[in-house]
């Protein structure tokens, strides 16, 4: 943490406004209070099993299927969404949510997402927030067996891989049994929420994959008769035989048809040409991102990922990058999703890392590259002196850079640093086709998040 403090002092030496100092101090304070070197916890505390979750069928091993699996919409998704749209027209907020839902692909398969979900709001008690040690007013759990008071009876690694979760950042777990592919979610988003299709899908690249298609033509036999082609050949033959004269009316009944004139389409192996994309998801996980901003950013990134998967027919590679004052790449969406916030903020570090990865792996050659960055807009690099050059480098190769600023509301409604220096740099105007910025307040709804995606990708 010393380095963080040193960094802050360096910045201080260069001069800071009162407001910037306040933000920096706030993040420093958060970071230092946690005290440990590695302050980003990869997930929330494990939740206790509710006493009401013990039920007969489970325990008696009757093998009855879980009723949860039966929640697969008996009504079609389209119907549900239609109903939701109707709600809006009737003056009530939408209820069906899409995208609160992540199950990271193990071994790279992207089975990820649950589809329609909702929550029935009721007045219920919330727990009093715990402090960092997880001690709080937590009543504890039951236990039985040996052990003195105070004795540790077991431990559970914090980095345990868990099933997906509904929360994000600091949200809570709870595996979702339902699965659907990201691809489906992308389709739903594209169709139901009128997200645009990609105009330019980048350059095509042949893969060692084949599709079987009725594209080849064959004379004499085949699967489907190509009527137009056949007629054309019949005419050619008859012209050659002199049975059809220019100017004279054609008597179709008198045409001769040779077996060889029949033109068929035949099933054949085709090399598949596909475009590929690599998407960098970059998330600010500094201390000021706590709570809502993180949730918004992560939600938006899930949806963007889904949409791109659909657009690229699943040929999307994803890279996940988290940054505070330093950037690091994490393996999967899970970590990206659940890693908790702490530390200061330097956007440049993340952009530098993206640039390095792209350069080292020569990604520009084969891929369309997308970068989506979510932040609360705070940056210790107040004027973007380091960030902007990195961003410009990125603009050279990227197909689209989308920056989402989810305001943390820490300092009222003033514009954040990132927003300020981006606007000032003129890049937003000059590279309009490549660089997009979306600023949303921390109270934004799901609909606003999707609206934001439109802005970033249209």
């Amino acid at each position, binding site marked *: 943490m010393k380095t963080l403090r040193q960094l802050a002092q360096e910045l201080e030496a260069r001069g800071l406004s009162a407001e910037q100092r306040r933000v920096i*101090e706030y993040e*420093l*304070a958060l970071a230092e*209070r946690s*005290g*440990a070197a590695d302050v980003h916890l990869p997930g929330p*505390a494990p939740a206790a099993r*509710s*006493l*009401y979750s*013990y*039920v007969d*069928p489970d*325990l*008696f*091993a*009757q093998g009855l*299927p*879980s*009723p*949860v699996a*039966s*929640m697969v919409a*008996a009504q079609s998704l389209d119907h*549900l969404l239609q109903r939701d749209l*109707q709600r809006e027209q009737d003056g*009530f*907020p939408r*209820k069906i949510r899409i995208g609160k839902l992540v199950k990271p692909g193990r071994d790279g398969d992207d089975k990820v997402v649950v589809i*329609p979900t*909702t*929550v*029935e*709001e*009721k*007045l*219920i*008690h*919330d727990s*009093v927030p715990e402090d*960092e040690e*997880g*001690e709080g007013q937590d*009543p*504890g*759990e*039951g*236990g*039985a*067996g*040996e052990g003195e008071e*105070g004795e*540790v*009876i*077991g431990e*559970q690694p*914090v980095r345990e891989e868990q099933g997906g*979760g509904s*929360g994000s950042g600091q949200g809570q777990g*709870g595996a979702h049994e339902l699965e659907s592919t990201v691809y489906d979610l992308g389709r739903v988003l594209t169709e139901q929420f009128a997200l645009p299709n990609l105009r330019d899908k980048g350059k095509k690249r042949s893969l060692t994959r084949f599709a079987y298609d009725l594209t080849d033509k064959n004379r004499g036999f085949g699967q489907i008769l190509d009527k137009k082609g056949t007629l054309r050949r019949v005419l050619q033959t008859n012209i050659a035989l002199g049975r059809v004269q220019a100017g004279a009316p054609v008597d179709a009944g008198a045409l001769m048809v040779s077996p060889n004139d029949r033109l068929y389409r035949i099933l054949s192996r085709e090399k598949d040409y596909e475009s590929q994309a690599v998407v960098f998801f970059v998330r600010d996980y500094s201390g000021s991102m706590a709570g809502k901003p993180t949730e918004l950013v992560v939600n938006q990134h899930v949806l963007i990922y889904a949409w791109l998967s659909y657009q690229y027919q699943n040929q999307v590679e994803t890279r996940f990058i988290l940054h505070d004052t330093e950037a690091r790449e994490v393996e999967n969406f899970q970590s990206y999703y659940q890693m908790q916030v702490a530390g200061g903020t330097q956007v440049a570090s993340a952009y530098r890392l993206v640039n390095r990865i792209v350069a080292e792996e020569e990604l520009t050659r084969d891929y369309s590259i997308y970068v989506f960055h979510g932040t609360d807009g705070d940056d210790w690099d107040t004027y973007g002196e380091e960030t902007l050059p990195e961003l410009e480098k990125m603009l050279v190769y990227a197909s689209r850079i989308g920056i989402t600023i989810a305001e943390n509301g820490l300092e009222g409604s003033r514009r954040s640093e990132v927003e300020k220096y981006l606007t000032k740099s003129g890049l937003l105007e000059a590279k309009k086709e490549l660089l997009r910025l979306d600023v949303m307040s921390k109270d934004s709804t799901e609909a606003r998040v999707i609206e934001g995606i439109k802005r970033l990708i249209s």
Partner: protein
Amino acid sequence: MELISQHAKRIMEGCKERARQAGLRFGDETLEYIVTNRDMVALGPKVMIPTLYDYWVQDVEVLREQGRYELYPNNPYETVINTRPPISYYNDNNPDWLNVMIFYHVIGHIDLFQNNLFFRHTWDYDFAGRALADKRLFAKLRSEKGRWVDYVIEFARTIDNLVGYFDLLAETDGGAKGGRPLSLLDYYFDIFLQRGPKPAVSLYAKEIERYNRMRREFPEDGELRFLKSVTEKHRELEALHAKKVQEKQQVGRTDPLRFLMEYSPFLNREENRWMLMILEVIRSTSLYFQPQIRTKILNEGWASYWHDTLFLGDDRIRGHEVDYAIVNAKVTSMPRVGLNPYALGMRLFQYLEQQADRGRTGLAYFQTHDRRKRQQFDRATGQGRDYIFHIRENYCDSMFVNQFIDQDFVDQHRLFVVGKRLNKERMTWQYYVRSRKAADYRQMVADSLYHPPRVEVRVDENNVLVLDHQFEGKPLLRDFISGVMLGLEYLWGGEVHLYTSVPIPVKANREDDGQVREETPKRIIEWKRFRYTMKDKTLARTLAE
């Protein structure tokens, strides 16, 4: 869904006989169904009630990130439902011995459903039949009113966890509605003197003393004289008392659904009266489920006690003891960490039976303080069975837990409260034995019981509906407030206010210059009363005090 085979049914009739001999009491008729995956598709979302009304949320996965059981105060996915006759569900390929075991368990549940006084309001009708009628009613309304039916269902369901279950119990108990009328004297001592955050005990004692003195000095009209002196001193007293009395006379004071049905100007308009039917259905459905969630430990403990007792005594299934032991261990073993209601409830029943067998339930035992004498205390009354039957009839979870978990029980089963803390060096969550005291264990169990917030309803000037959330040391889940109040505004037809307490962290660890002190002080919370206002579908929050 098809009925279980005649062969299996015959076995189950045998189980009933044996259960009756052991003292369980239940109706003659039961229905047992075989369920397949396909049946579960229909049953699951309808909490195993095949005839429950249709509602679109049943078609959508419901987010369970926040306390599922707080939201749904019923036991979904149980093997047996409390209908007339009770219906239980079995898998197609269960072996006979497993069906027998399950059926004994089911009989335990049925016995509790039909004898526990907390279920009394469900005794007089068949819920499956009633639900079917409700389902048809909704279908008919839908054909007339379209999607508005679903909106009303949705809004009614936002408060269906706040039904006045205990009012209903009090009424079915034959007691006068609302109990004794509130006299001015009661009001003065019980409410007026104790208002405010810190009522002065000395003042209260002084007043009691003064009252008693007056009664002594003027045997005929001492009370009147006292009241006269009091009303002269506090001129507002009588008006406040009158207001309180009036409030108490209103129905549904802690039952927003009933309150709305009774007093909502919007719902009682001629063209909206159909909505009342929906509210009534939602309310009665919710009331039907209330006792179930409040007797989880009792119910599962009772059923486990009986399947264990009856199965092992059943001569027909000799040879399956080992199979049985495996399944039974899964059901009724105490987890190292966790709270298994089957295990806890069964052990508590067994413990109480032993205690009562030795007569350790009366005054004589509790007045014995000598440890050795206590250990040897045995009156050999043999009242154990009777005692636990008495408990199954008269108790619910919170009474069961608070009254009977004592140090002997905790020691006997080596129970403890588990704490959890983060070890930053090893990056692990550590579980440790936090306490082995009965009081702590009891508190821990009591805290994990279902407990919906208590909300009092009244109407303010300007016809504003006011919900007053009684503070019990917990905040309301803020994310949900907006949705609930939106629905209430619709059903009330006007502005709605909600008063609740919110924890505000006190920033003790930050000084003015933003510097942080070296050590990390314990976080302090301060509770502040806030008012949420829902008007024209917009929610606002203001500090109320």
